[in-house]
């Protein structure tokens, strides 16, 4: 990124506008790998970014994949997702607990062996 790019994807100005100046995505409790699924179809008049999220999440998709497909930072995507969650337009499937139980570890071992 060069300092002269006034409307670059990642400039704070653009990101500020996208999120309406809100911050604090943590409140939505979203992890990078929380799976998001759309509950409703995009509607006319929605903010384009909201619409895009609903479109890419027809099947479950992680927060970080949404970020990659929309080319927006995770910190912005989580704010946009908080809106959609509040309106119950998407469902969030929480990641496995951070201290995984032995069953998850066993399942991953098994899954990797079968690749």
């Amino acid at each position, binding site marked *: 990124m060069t300092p002269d790019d006034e409307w670059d994807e990642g400039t704070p100005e653009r990101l500020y506008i996208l999120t309406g100046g809100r911050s604090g995505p943590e409140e939505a409790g979203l992890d990078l790998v929380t799976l998001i699924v759309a509950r409703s179809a995009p509607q006319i008049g929605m903010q384009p970014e909201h619409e895009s999220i609903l479109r890419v999440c027809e099947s479950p998709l992680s927060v970080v994949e949404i*970020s990659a497909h929309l080319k927006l*930072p995770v910190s912005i995507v989580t704010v946009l997702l908080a809106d959609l969650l509040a309106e119950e337009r998407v469902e969030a499937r929480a*990641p496995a607990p951070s201290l995984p139980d032995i069953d998850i570890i066993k399942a991953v071992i098994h899954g990797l062996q079968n690749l």
Partner: protein
Amino acid sequence: MVSRTFETVAGPRSEDTLPSSATSAVKIVIVGGFGVGKTTLVRSVSEIRPLTTEETMTQASVSVDDLEGIERKSMTTVAMDFGRISIDDELVLYVFGTPGQQRFWFLWNGLFEGALGAVVLVDTRRLEASFDVLGRLEESQTPFVVAVNAFDEAPSYSDEELREALDLTDDVPLLVCDARSRESSKGVLLALMRYLYSLAMTSEAT
């Protein structure tokens, strides 16, 4: 609201969509110095074409950068590669390959929190590139294994020499891999998972 035109977002290819039964996901982080093969390993194991996410970070909380030629500025863009492996109908594993600039990984919100563990990729020509990250992983109590990505030109050392040089205790698994090979990279992830299994068994026993 944004007034400029917003290009249509393609989204995942149909063969890359997860089944609607997918309910939870876990993650593993691949760390290591510049060019040790992190992206290559992610690509080798991923079922989707690896994706990239970028985050803009303020450098305010970062201590003075020791990388020459990198000017101090207030914002830095950090890109992270990642891939995905479907474990079964319900569980999905994500594998993250961190970028070379180690200082930023630990600022990345939620990258290490909740991660099952980490793989430290090592190039024996530049062992010192791993010192910083090994220390930070220990600090953050993230369990990890160390995998030497065997480049043809790189010197090979005995396990004892490597453990000594990297200051690794005997319980940390150390293995050799070829990040370009799917089987070998899969073996690295399995080594980490078996290690986590042994840790979980030990903590359950106490």
